[in-house]
């Protein structure tokens, strides 16, 4: 088994350190808001420090192998073990989750949304971090499932308690959709377990043995997983929870949702569904690709129809995740590399856009695009940052978004052997049209919000021009790393591709080249 076991304590520490912070928070008296914030900040800095140390120790020459592997007994009766490890696919997402959490915590230091309760707010953020990081390191299906589900409750409460006016509806909808998906996914995992001889839930083991399952059984098992992951991504037609959840969630919730939670689904496809069930993946690929391009066009048209800035960004996520899924559906290493890059890029860019939306909401007290305007004159820095992110999001070459979108479209030109070329080339053309629409809605939004003159402040109630202050210090601290990331990955995409590629190649080796 090609696994490296040195330093195998690193991942556990990095994953569970936030839980340690949660315990400390729970024991603290309620009134000490400042101390609560400090604990949360220190915990997330320490977590990221462990994460960065992990990256230093990571052997990039062997990125295709699982590293820091720990394998401990967990539920031996059902043959599930505490098996964790990272390879080139997991590591970027693992680190991304830590970075995003830290930035969200920094942003929250002076932006705890209504109704306050910072102690519970930060505790939930940290629980969320453990769940996200854990999902990316789990190499055992049951462990994966537990972490995958662990993020549900904190996000449910983040949306439901700290969200907008329709928050209760949105939070329940989010929860029921994802739970429905994961219930079917669990059944699929169990079927997979028994069809491979009831030996182990370990993902490497299942990758070795999953291919031997009869094709028609594979197709059914894949269907269960597909629903579980597709709800999370979210793919058309399972996406309807997303606009509500995003619109109602507090800024911090939206950022984490867009930047990390959506990736749990696509990551599940790459890590589990494709390599374990290659025959079914081939059968399903055209349908996945089809739904992906429908998502691209549907998301884009949805964006054009929105009047709410946050809802528009939410719909753009549907479109962007469509590109990611298109890349995955080609089953080529080229496409999956593009998809993985797209996941990271979308995390940085859309996370950033939601941060901006949060700051706009805070200043204007509305997100109605028609009531905004002239941001470049009133708050030039915020306006330009917004412009920068809109450009990145529409896939401008030189910024990170491009390297997710363009190769994904290109990969559809030449899908893996056994897939219908014509179909995928049609997908390619449709997806390319989607980029035009993307440019359309993003530029249109930017134009309406940033250009022109500031709208009369009396038209939106309590906001006075005093409140329209430009980017604050906390916002700068929270945003700079993301902006730098978008720029650096845009100019030097190979930084990420070189880590991803060996692992993607290894993962897709089941498809025979």
């Amino acid at each position, binding site marked *: 088994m090609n696994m490296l076991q040195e330093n195998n304590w690193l991942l556990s520490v990095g994953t569970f350190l936030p839980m340690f912070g949660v315990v400390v928070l729970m024991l603290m008296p*309620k009134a000490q808001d400042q101390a609560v914030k400090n604990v949360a900040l220190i915990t997330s800095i320490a977590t990221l420090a462990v994460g960065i140390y992990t990256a230093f120790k990571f052997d990039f020459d062997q990125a295709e192998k699982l590293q820091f592997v720990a394998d401990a*007994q*967990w*539920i*031996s*009766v*059902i043959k599930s073990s505490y098996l964790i490890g990272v390879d080139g696919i997991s590591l970027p997402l693992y680190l991304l989750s830590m970075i995003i959490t830290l930035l969200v915590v920094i942003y929250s230091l002076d932006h705890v949304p209504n109704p306050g*309760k910072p102690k*519970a707010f930060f505790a939930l953020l940290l629980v969320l971090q453990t769940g996200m990081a854990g999902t990316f390191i789990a190499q055992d299906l*049951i462990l994966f*499932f*537990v972490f995958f*589900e*662990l993020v*549900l*409750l904190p996000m*449910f*409460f983040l949306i*439901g*308690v700290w969200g907008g006016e329709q*928050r*209760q509806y949105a*939070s*329940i909808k989010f*929860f*029921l959709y994802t*739970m*429905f998906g994961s*219930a*079917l996914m*669990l*059944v699929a995992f*169990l*079927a997979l*377990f*028994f069809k491979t001889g*009831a030996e182990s839930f370990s993902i490497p083991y299942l990758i070795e043995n999953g291919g031997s399952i009869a094709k028609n059984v594979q197709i059914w098992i894949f269907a269960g997983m597909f629903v579980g992951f597709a709800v999370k991504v979210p793919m058309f037609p399972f996406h309807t929870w997303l606009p509500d959840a995003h619109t109602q969630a507090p800024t911090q919730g939206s950022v984490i949702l867009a930047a990390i939670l959506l990736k749990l689904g696509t990551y599940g496809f790459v890590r589990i569904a494709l390599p374990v069930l290659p025959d079914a993946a081939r059968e399903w690929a055209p349908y996945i690709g089809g739904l992906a391009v429908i998502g691209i066009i549907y998301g884009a048209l949805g964006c054009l129809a929105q009047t709410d800035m946050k809802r528009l960004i939410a719909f753009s996520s549907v479109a962007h995740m469509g590109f990611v899924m298109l890349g995955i559906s080609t089953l080529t290493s080229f496409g999956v590399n593009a998809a993985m890059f797209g996941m990271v890029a979308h995390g940085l860019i859309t996370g950033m856009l939601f941060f901006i939306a949060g700051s706009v909401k805070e200043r204007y007290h509305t997100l109605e695009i028609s009531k905004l305007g002239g941001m470049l004159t009133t708050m030039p820095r915020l306006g330009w940052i917004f412009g920068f992110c809109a450009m990145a999001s529409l896939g401008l070459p030189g910024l990170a978004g491009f390297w997710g979108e363009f190769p994904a479209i290109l990969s559809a030109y030449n899908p893996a052997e056994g897939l219908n070329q014509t179909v995928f080339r049609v997908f390619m053309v449709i997806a390319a049209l989607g980029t035009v629409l993307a440019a359309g809605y993003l530029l249109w939004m930017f134009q309406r919000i940033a250009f022109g003159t500031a709208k009369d402040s009396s038209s939106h109630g309590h906001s006075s021009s005093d409140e329209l202050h430009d980017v604050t210090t906390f916002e700068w601290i929270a945003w700079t790393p993301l902006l730098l990331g978008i720029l650096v990955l845009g100019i030097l995409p190979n930084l990420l591709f070189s880590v991803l590629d060996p692992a993607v190649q290894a993962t897709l080796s089941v498809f025979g080249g």
Partner: protein
Amino acid sequence: MQHLNILAAQWVAPTIDYFGLAPELVLAGGLCIVLLVDLFIDERKKWLLSVISSFTLLAAMVPVLMLGLSETSVRSMFDGRYVVDNFSLVVKSLFLLAGYVVVLLSSSHIEQGEYWRGEYWFLLLTSLLGMLMMASSRDLVSIFVALEFLSIPAYMLAAWRKRDPKSNEAGVKYFMLGVFASAVMLYGMSLMYGVANSTLLTDIGAKVAATGEFSAVHALAVVFVIVGFAFKVSAVPFHTWAPDTYEGAPTPVTAFLSVASKAAGFVALVVLLYTAFPLAQDVWQPLIWVLSALTMTVGNVLALKQHNIVRMIAYSSISQGGFVLMPLAVAGLVGSGSTALRAVVLYMIVYAATNLGVFAIILAVSNKTRSGEISSYGGLFSYAPTLGVLMTIFLASLAGIPPLGGWIAKFVAFQSLIQSQSNWGYALALVGAVNSVIAFGYYGNVMREIWMRPVPDGDVTTISVPGSLRLALAITAGATLLFGVLPGVGLHFADLAEIAGAITR
């Protein structure tokens, strides 16, 4: 006369294994002490009775543990009619610990109302004694005696609030339907005796195994016995007593009924299926399949509509019963018997911990709000964060969300269904999967009240939680988390539970 003399001469006193009976004897001794002490102490010192009761239950745990550690794994008495095996020891400790938590829940509650305290403890312990007997009974007659032993005190406990018409209604409904169920079951048992010419469960099982034949009467008998227990575990369509009884009975009694009494029903059902009817699976598998699917679906759908927290928990516990039945629907298939048994035992253990925790919270909150409405939980998190978080943990566990205990229980149940690799198993797993999502509708609703709604009357005085409730909360929350994070612990005990004499394939 001659015959009788011969019979009398042949009668040999059975050897009684007093060590094997020690848990029951300790409990019997304890309840006599409660009864006697009650006569001689004055009103103000009646709290002593709850102390004696709880110590009795803990004392009865000692022989259970010693039996568990002893060399002999199966102790059989009275020609195999009363058996102390690992299964019975595991469920006995479940009953005793659940009983202990119920005593903790009761002690402050009982002190407040106009209750007949002495008798309360006496009846509670008696019912628990019946449960311990149920765990070891391997004979139709002793099962029936144990069942009545545990049920009759429970009827009285349900009607304990004498001046409250609702409580009286609860008791009467429970009694009438319970007696009806007993009658149906007894009829089934008499048919069974007619077929097998024996009341010993293993004989009944062996009878079919030997001849391979299976008569219509036998099938009818199996159905009647199962229907009788379906009443006991409130499986749909035999659930109608449960919501009214749960709502009307004093809350600690409801906790007791929904956890311990229900578990006792499952224990007897499992023993019967595994030792007496193992080869009649063509009869009971479809029956249990339908009962399970109906129970979880109907329980869930009705729970969605409830406004009263106890009624909602009543329907939720009906639906949870469907999940316990789920693995039994494939238990007769080759290779599924032992995993189904493990799933049932684990589910009962986890469900007991979680549901008792829910009732502890209900008691603590109703101390302040004096209301059973779900809306009275509004804003609980803002003025009683600990209770709010604990209730969230319990509800999430009931909904089966990792990493809380409920998920592993549901997981193992699904596992045994899918392991059977039968289409019936897959279909039921899908029904269960859909239901576990629906269930979040009402559990999530309570969470929503706790976290997202304002306090209904604006009264945000903190809730003072009595010490005994605190202890109960600590035990149940600790167990719920432990079973979820380290599922191996619960599974270890569930895996130990082997029924001696069971025919599994």
